[in-house]
């Protein structure tokens, strides 16, 4: 790991990534054991990006996420217990059981939401930044999206808008090379995502997205420029999606050799090796991983025993004026 990073900071990244990995592996197992409803989109292998980016956000900053959003919420300091309850569709879940994995949000930490619609988070992030600018609040917005999202119109419209208004947005493209079951390169023309951003007036930097120290360093530089009023920036982080598109997808359309090769470039193991070089004992890392495993096991245990929402909750939080009520059959 070429980038200079302090031992404590890297240890913190390791813990964040371990929590994301454990959450994803737990979610996958729960899905396979048919203990949670719906589907989950897993981000195993991509943990370094949210860890490195979110470490550079301040308390007042905000973020938007995607369908593959667990890592963003966890790296931002989201409540793992509430997330687990949401996966189970129970009371106390991040969204009271109404949203599920694909809609987890936590406004207390400025997490404006995962999203079921590809590229939908981009204009929302720009709107959050626009509001901050209007209010004169010094907030930065981190906007996560996948490589597949750059072929939707909102990508162009959002980057252009953010540049026109010099808004404080850090766009973070997590390039895991796949758009569901299609390699993104087969559906994407031109000189690449960074060049597209530059053409829209948004300076872009590329980074090895599996190197948490490098992501942290570059994100730090970019967030600083954004915060200083320099307008939006884009961070293009190269990584790989280890699992299928959803938990229901075995990913059989991929060359197993490609997946195996990608898995040798494990962001967690890379951080562990670098920590070893900084004199951290293997036992210390193992202790972190077992802490995290215990945290997840506890979260699952509580979530599975938690009550389902009261059916009356179906009707709450729809709207104030003209709120729906159960129709009495007649």
């Amino acid at each position, binding site marked *: 790991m070429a980038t200079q990073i302090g031992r404590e900071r890297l240890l913190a990244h390791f813990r964040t990534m371990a929590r994301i990995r454990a959450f994803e592996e737990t979610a996958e197992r729960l899905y396979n054991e048919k203990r949670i*409803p*719906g*589907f989950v989109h897993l981000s195993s292998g991509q943990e370094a990006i949210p860890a490195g980016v979110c470490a550079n956000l301040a308390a007042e900053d905000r973020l938007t996420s995607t369908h593959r959003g667990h890592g963003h919420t966890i790296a931002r300091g989201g409540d793992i217990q509430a997330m687990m309850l*949401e996966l189970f*569709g*129970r009371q106390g*879940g991040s*969204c009271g*059981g*109404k*949203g*599920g994995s*694909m*809609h987890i949000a936590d406004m207390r930490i400025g997490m404006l939401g995962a*999203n*079921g*619609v*590809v*590229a939908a988070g981009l204009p929302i992030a720009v709107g959050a930044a626009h509001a901050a600018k209007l209010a004169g609040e010094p907030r930065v917005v981190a906007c996560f999206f996948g490589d*597949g*999202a750059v*072929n*939707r*119109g909102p990508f162009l419209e959002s980057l252009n808008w953010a540049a026109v208004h010099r808004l404080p947005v850090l766009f973070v493209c997590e390039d895991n090379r796949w*758009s*569901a*079951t*299609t390699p993104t390169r*087969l*559906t*994407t023309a031109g000189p690449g995502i960074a060049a597209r951003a530059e053409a829209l007036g948004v300076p872009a930097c590329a980074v090895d997205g599996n190197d948490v120290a490098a992501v942290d360093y570059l994100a730090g530089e970019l967030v600083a420029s954004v915060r200083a009023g320099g307008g939006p920036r884009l961070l293009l982080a190269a990584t790989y999606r280890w699992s299928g598109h959803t938990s229901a997808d075995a990913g059989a*359309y991929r060359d197993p050799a490609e997946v195996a090769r990608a898995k040798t470039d494990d962001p967690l193991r890379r951080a562990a090796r670098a920590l070893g070089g900084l004199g951290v004992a293997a036992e210390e890392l193992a202790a972190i991983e077992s802490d995290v495993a215990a945290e997840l096991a506890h979260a699952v245990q509580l979530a599975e025993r938690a009550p*389902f*929402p009261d*059916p009356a*909750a*179906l*009707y709450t939080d*729809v709207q104030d004026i003209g709120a*729906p009520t*159960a*129709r009495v*059959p*007649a």
Partner: protein
Amino acid sequence: MSRMSFVEATRQALAAEMRRDGRIFVLGEDLGRGGVFQQYRGLQAEFGPARVVDTPISESAIMGVAVGAAMCGARPVVEMRYLDFTLCAVDELVNQAAKLRYMLGGQARVPMVVRQPIGLWANCAAQHSQSLEAWWVHVPGLVVLCPGDPADAGPMLAAAIRADDPVVLLEYKELFPVEGEVGDPTLPAEIGRARLVRPGSDLTLVAWGGSVREAAGAAELLAARGISAEVIDLRSLWPWDSAAVLASVARTGHLLVAQEATEVAGFGAEIAALVAEETGARVARIGAPRTPIPFSPALEAAYRVDAARIAARAAAFLARHR
């Protein structure tokens, strides 16, 4: 007749149409791997990537490209993956495809099919489960089809492809794996004809898509209570078979329309209104509450319009008006 799943019937119908007419091409995301519900399995191998196009995630472009191609002699079949993502392409569908023929004084036609997997499925929550058929029925220029049985799946797709109008084809996700007795799935259906699912004398139950099974289940429950319900599968929402519905209600005197969609301003309201206007018969509707679709199974159970709810509504309705 053979036993076949809904989705297999659509695959056979599409392949037969593509063999027959070289102008037909399909465009949508991930079609080379078969599509989300395996509607396109094997088709890229047979017809090649130029006729089964793996598109970027670009819904406006998918729909808009189909409009342009259709105006110029191609016969595009658009796959929207989930009905919900059509909302990323509404301008192209509503402002362009639906109106071009009219606005251009009849100079051009837009013969395209827009396949939209619709409805509740696997707790996919508020952005992947909607039933918005009423939106499309409301738009002049669009034909709207919604098969409710494996036997109709292929023929309605074939008919949609052969139509010279833009056709929205709504396919209930929960029906894709359902098997049934299927005739020749490649034989185009007659658009605009309802299907009698079950005869009855006390009440006419009208449904479409995924609600047909629920309505049939409700009729079963009602029979056990001595109520004879006639069940009609509308199949085609625009044009819809008002003659069949009016004839049935003329005999039963009571109409209940059951839909999975939000009850308020749903297509059921249109049917009920027309029947009331034409016959003076008693009419009622049942649909989902006007809430977004919840994730938790506990809340979805409170949301879903199932056979038991339809039966309860029917019994209460008859008790009040008989």
